[in-house]
């Protein structure tokens, strides 16, 4: 299971963070340490968040952000996930001048989006279901969060 997208090393439950940048740095650090992404990944994600932010206002009370960047900064695909002890402001993808109060951050390290399309579609399906978003948010541990997220990601797998 050394190549699983999710690992307790980069799933952070009830993360205390004051800013979007801090969340992204905390999530990216274990990916760099594990060799999933290049050291350049962090700045590339932060830069992309400045020019093309990724806050997504959802239909329920909890909102998400999906920071990511170009594939050349990624060595092997991974999803780093944080649930936030207190919501953090990310700028909105659709209206960058507005902010979204984000409770779950999923940092996407992608190498070949078309190979990972089922996973991406599953994430979009998750975002469309406030009850399942809440279930992921309320996970007590990294292991439980991974279990709940895998249940979502495996639904579409052929």
């Amino acid at each position: 299971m050394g190549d699983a997208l999710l690992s307790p090393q980069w799933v952070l439950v009830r993360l205390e963070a004051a800013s979007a940048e801090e969340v992204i740095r905390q999530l990216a650090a274990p990916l760099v340490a594990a060799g999933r992404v290049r050291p350049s990944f962090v700045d590339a994600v932060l830069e992309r968040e400045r020019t093309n932010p990724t806050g997504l206002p959802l239909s329920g009370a909890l909102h998400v952000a999906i920071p990511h960047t170009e594939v050349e900064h990624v060595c092997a695909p991974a999803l780093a996930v944080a649930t936030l002890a207190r919501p953090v402001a990310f700028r909105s993808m659709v209206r960058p001048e507005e902010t979204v109060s984000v409770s779950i951050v999923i940092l996407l390290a992608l190498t070949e989006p078309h190979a990972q399309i089922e996973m991406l579609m599953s994430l979009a399906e998750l975002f469309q279901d406030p009850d399942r978003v809440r279930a992921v948010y309320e996970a007590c541990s990294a292991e439980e969060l991974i279990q709940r997220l895998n249940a979502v990601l495996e639904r579409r797998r052929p």
Partner: protein
Amino acid sequence: MNQPKRILVACGTAIATSTVVAKAIEEGLAARGIPVVTRQCKAAEVPALAKEFDLVVTTTPVPSDLGVPVIQTLAFLTGIGKDQVLDQIAEILRKGK
């Protein structure tokens, strides 16, 4: 003969978001009996590419004076208003030449 309509799907980096949007549009319009082909691009590439397409669907802001209809929406990621947006796309494509 119905040529498939061409839709340009844009997001920030043409990596994650537009992949999801393009697939959701293809599935949603196939269900409405409208064959489409999509191409993904970065928002910054839209002005240069738009003229070759019947419609631009984007998650992030793009210029509005492209000479092609533009729909900016997160519906394919958040599900909010997804059916309405698919109906709107179908309407634009049916009206188009």
